[in-house]
């Protein structure tokens, strides 16, 4: 599904990703772990197409198409979804309005019919219930005055509605208490599908108790330095990232 080859990325002349290779299969949940500053968030931004990052080498291929040749909104329509670590606020734009705009923008880009209002409402209602998002919250401006937990649930709601094929969760567990974490994890687990892959970026093993990965990759110094099964996460939890930091130094 997703194939990253020899990805080299700089920001402001500073090298962040240094020949990164990664492969994620359809249906797979891959976790990326690593010390702070290892380039985890940069990887998520580069896949999604944020400006300011200079890609010097390599390619990111999702289902046969090189994402690096596409604009961010085209990547979104092609099925890339990034759940932000710090979701942005859009004052004055009702959450429902935002959801409808983005769903229809993606459908339009793929040459599909726009959603009818009843169909849209039905989809939102169903997905919102699962994430314990009430109608009141949907009427408020997107993410404005939302708690940390509400913002993360809103990210997962968007993920559920947009039905992406490749989902990136960037430190989704940060700032969540255990109950909120459980709701978010359940929301993600409900979306696991043989045709869909996840890249779960996290510093701590905690999240991976709830979203159990198929593979775990350790990132250090801008590349993947070790890969293994879910037990690798437990090992890291016990030993920490010290050995990888030394390697970096």
């Amino acid at each position, binding site marked *: 599904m997703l194939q990253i080859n020899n990805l080299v990325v700089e920001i402001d002349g500073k090298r962040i990703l240094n020949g990164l290779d990664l492969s994620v299969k359809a249906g797979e949940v891959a976790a990326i772990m690593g010390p702070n500053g290892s380039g985890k968030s940069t990887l998520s931004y580069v896949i999604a197409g944020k400006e300011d990052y200079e890609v010097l080498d390599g390619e990111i291929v999702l289902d046969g198409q090189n994402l690096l040749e596409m604009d961010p909104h085209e990547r979104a329509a092609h099925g890339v979804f990034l759940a932000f670590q710090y979701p942005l606020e*859009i004052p004055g734009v009702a959450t429902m309005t935002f959801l409808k705009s983005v769903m229809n923008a993606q459908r339009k880009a793929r040459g599909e019919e726009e959603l009818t209002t009843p169909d849209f409402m039905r989809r939102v209602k169903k997905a919102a219930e699962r994430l314990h998002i009430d109608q009141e919250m949907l009427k408020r401006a997107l993410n404005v005055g939302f708690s940390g937990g509400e913002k993360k649930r809103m990210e997962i709601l968007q993920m559920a509605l947009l039905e992406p094929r490749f989902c990136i969760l960037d430190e989704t567990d940060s700032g969540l208490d255990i109950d909120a974490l459980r709701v978010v994890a359940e929301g993600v687990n409900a979306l696991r599908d043989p045709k869909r892959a996840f890249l779960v970026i996290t510093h701590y093993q905690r999240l991976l108790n709830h979203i159990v990965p198929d593979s775990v990759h350790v990132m250090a110094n801008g590349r993947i330095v070790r890969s293994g099964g879910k037990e690798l996460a437990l090992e890291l939890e016990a030993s920490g990232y010290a050995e990888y930091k030394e390697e970096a130094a």
Partner: protein
Amino acid sequence: MPAVQETVERVKTLDVDQYKYGFETHIEVDKAPKGLSEDIVRFISQKKGEPEWMTEWRLEAYRRWVTMREPTWARVSYPKIDYQDLYYYAAPKKNPAPKSLDEVDPEILKTYEKLGIPLREQEILAGVEGGSRVAVDAVFDSVSVATTFKEELRKAGVIFCSISEAIREHAELVRKYLGSVVPVSDNFFATLNSAVFTDGSFVYVPEGVRCPMELSTYFRINERKTGQFERTLIIADKGSYVSYLEGCTAPQRDENQLHAAVVELIALDDAEIKYSTVQNWYPGDAQGKGGVYNFVTKRGDCRGANSKISWTQVETGSAITWKYPSCILRGDNSRGEFYSIAISNGYQQVDSGTKMLHLGKNTTSRIISKGIAAGRSENTYRGLVSAHRKATGARNFTNCDSLLIGDKCGAHTVPYIESKNASAVFEHEATTSKISDDQMFYCLQRGLDEEEAVALIVNGFVKDVLQQLPMEFAVEAQKLISISLEGSVG
């Protein structure tokens, strides 16, 4: 002349103009010679078949005007206007007052259709029971060419006609109220307008009548170098209500066009006037060339107790906007409101705001201003809130927000607050923000393209004001906001 033509062609081929309504209608025009003099003023007055008192009124204005100087305090700059190099009167030919739309020049009707204002459809729609009804006093250049729904309004006792017709048919009302809110000597542009205004709308809503429909006027500027001098007078008698909509678009052209309108509103005891504007005149091309100069004087007088005047404006067009719709809160317990969205892009310059003059007791006012600057534009809010010595219990709330798109534009807020009464309570809030790169990326990641993302964020920013517009207008305004911000990113 060929050189000018060449410039026009070149500008056209650049294909950078975002102005969607840039076309010109070819019809013959009956115009006065260039320049301004007492003779021209008399010519205009005579052309319009005006009575002697009106001619004198105009001449008095003209004599004052020649002694006045163009104001320079606004934060706008433009080449000096040669007032002797303009035409002051142009009327579409062959139209001795059409009795129905069939008699209107087909070219004109076509123009309206391009603008999405099918008069014919509106008339048909009017027959639909319970449907939304909008009466259009269509102003083409300077002369009203079609007035619909007149009959129905007449039944309610509402007078809605061109100001020229009002001068002839309702002289007593015009004489009583014209110039009573914006005096002949008010300011340079208003005085010029008083001398040479060619047409505009007149509305009178009698005592206790709630006007049965929204009244609407669409203005268009046509014909080269025709200064446009509209004059609007709206009177809401005791206990009446009227909602008036004004919308404008103009054809694209290579020369600057001067526009100096005057709008006067009078609300008597317990009356309410709601005046909404969507302004989309040609803003100039991507280099800042051409575009309308808009110097407008709009003022409402809450003359009676418990009266209310509410201004709502969506300003997206014009190269230069100089406009301060204001309220004189004379009657006790009267209320003034100003809701504004001013968008500037390219090289547009906007200096707009309001004045709330509290004179009566327990008067209240509310100002919500949203300025959006993109491209290389300059956007200034300039406002005055004042309480007279006798204005016990005056209250004002002001909120001015500015949004910047890109880093080559400017937003400025210049609020003046003067209180001569210790019991007055004036509140002022102001913010300036930018669409952040992160906000943009968030929207792009969800599948919106750059223009859709900006339009969405801006529509959120102006929501409080859009809500004040009548439904049909709000939809049009939302579209206009998206169109006017095209090319503001990337």
